[in-house]
């Protein structure tokens, strides 16, 4: 009972922190907007005479002191209004969210590859550290860390698209629309388009996760409970998977969660190489064309993702390891 109350308090406090961080991100976005962009340009364009601009500026409250404008911006943000895109002439949040499914499916594909490969590879390297295979995997992971993600993409395109002609090199291919969500996962063409980008994005995360799984497993295998499990005659596979891996996952979730910012940066690079129509690709388009409202909205969206993932990771760690709730409370 006490533990549940403590957990609830922990989650509440974590949510309050998340809200505060979100507020800070919005204030920064507002500052960037005021410093770099002229909101009037979003609305009327360049052609309106100066006198008329002044009148409009007053009418819209753009000559008000900045705290008033900030309050206005925050009130708008609370209703999902973060401005209008200069390129698309539509609400920026709508434009950014329309690109979210593409980025999400790319990250999903890459995460699946990472998960399916890194867990077995990491376990293997931990339980057979001297085997040739384990050394090869670790050697490959050193090489993998040294190859920039955009080069992996370029090499894959050169080999599989240009030389062999097996897989498409850019775009999402055919997509299906289910309500708001535009998915490429349900058509063969969409899946074919996903293969190379997802492989590219996974290539940069894979070495890190193999090392993480290996390190965490090595740690767990040294514990007494593993020896006890072996002593009572449990099969090795069961000891590795049911006992050690379960505990090894705790640090993995925590460290994996810390990587979300890096993951966003690598997704941006991958989307650029494959002209994948996701949020990162949109962001770079907004940067080249100085669409300040769209840029700040992307930053707010990315900040929101960052906060959500970090909060989820904390709550997940709590669920995975009940000790955290008792020790880390104060």
């Amino acid at each position, binding site marked *: 009972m006490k533990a549940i109350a403590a957990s609830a308090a922990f989650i509440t406090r974590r949510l309050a922190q998340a809200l505060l961080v979100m507020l800070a991100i919005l204030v920064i976005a507002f500052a960037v907007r005021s410093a770099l962009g002229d909101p009037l340009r979003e609305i009327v364009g360049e052609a309106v005479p100066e006198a008329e601009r002044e009148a409009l500026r007053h009418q819209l409250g753009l000559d008000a002191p900045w705290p008033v404008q900030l309050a206005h911006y925050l009130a708008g943000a609370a209703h999902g209004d973060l401005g209008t895109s200069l390129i698309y002439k539509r609400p920026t949040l709508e434009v950014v969210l329309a690109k979210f499914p593409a980025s999400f499916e790319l990250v999903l594909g890459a995460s699946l590859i990472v998960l399916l490969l890194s867990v077995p590879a990491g376990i293997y390297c931990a339980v057979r550290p001297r085997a040739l295979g384990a050394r090869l995997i670790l050697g490959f992971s050193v090489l993998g860390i*040294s190859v920039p993600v955009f080069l992996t993409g370029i090499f894959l395109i*050169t080999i599989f698209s*240009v030389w062999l002609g097996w897989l498409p090199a850019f775009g999402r291919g055919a997509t299906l629309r289910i309500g708001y969500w535009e998915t490429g996962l349900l058509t063969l063409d969409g899946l074919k388009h996903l293969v190379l980008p997802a492989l590219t994005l996974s290539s940069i995360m894979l070495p890190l996760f193999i090392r993480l799984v290996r390190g965490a497993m090595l740690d767990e295998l040294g514990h007494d409970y593993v020896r006890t499990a072996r002593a009572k005659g449990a099969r090795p596979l069961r000891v590795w998977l049911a006992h050690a891996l379960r505990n090894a996952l705790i640090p993995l979730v925590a460290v994996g969660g810390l990587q979300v910012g890096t993951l966003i940066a690598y997704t941006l690079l991958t989307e650029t190489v494959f002209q994948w129509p996701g949020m990162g690709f949109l962001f770079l388009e907004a940067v080249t064309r100085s669409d300040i409202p769209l840029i700040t909205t992307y930053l707010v969206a990315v900040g929101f993702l960052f906060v959500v993932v970090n909060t989820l990771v904390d709550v997940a760690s709590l669920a995975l390891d009940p000790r955290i709730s008792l020790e880390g409370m104060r």
Partner: protein
Amino acid sequence: MSEEAASGPARGVLGYALENPGASLAAILLASIGLAVLAPFIAPYNPFDLSSLDVLDAELPPWWKEASDPRFLLGTDAQGRDLLSAILYGTRISLTVGVLAVAIQAAIGVPLGLLAGYRGGAIDSFVTRAADIQLSLSTLMMAIIALALFRAGLGGDALSRYAVPLLVVVIGLAEWPYFARTARAATQVEAAKDYVRAGRALGLSRIGIVRRHILPNIQSPLIVVATTQVAGAIMAEAALSFLGLGMPVTKPSLGTLIRSGYDLIFAGAWWVTVIPGLVLIVLLVSVNVLGDALRDALNPRVQRP
């Protein structure tokens, strides 16, 4: 004590190099790529001299292909620029940005780490916390955002003009925590040793002890961090330039060369982007291998066979 520390690592590095062909190979590769610093003297052409370019020379293949031209060993890019010269100059820019950025990282991180490690207490927890926060934000993402805002606010021209100092400062500011962490941990170990206590008993000033006695003794781990950080900085510069947020096409780094050759892959001229890419990878791998080798060679606790 200090004499031992000075001759030990030097002998260790040499001995290690003799026993480890991999590390020696990395060092040799690195040295040959390092020749790119002399690009203006050894490059066959000046890639910045637009008057020497001829569009008729565009997209020539490297020497092993049939249609190659003996004047251009590695072929040419879309403007007819000699790829070998462009790569030499580009490597020079990549190395410059990488080394200068790491110098800034060290200039911020090492003093903070020394301070935190030696003084402890509130200063220590402040520096540690600041380093944790900075690292959790992902340095590459922060650099992308900073340069993107600069470009969106002041335009692409301003970005190309100030690209080198901007890249150096952005990459330099982003990764100081690695130096701070290493310096802090090493200082904590050193500060508990007798020679530091003796210095204090002799009435030496705090700054004197830290600068003249602790700093020389924590050089080894700092050198190792610096090596891996140079690889990281070169990679970050390449990524930023590839995104169009770094070096301009008129003054290309390796990342810019990869970006500008990228469209030609589909026209069949893959070498324009793949060759600079391979140079970048060899550069990064050899710096990383060298960093690992230095870590083992300078660490007295590792038993060498």
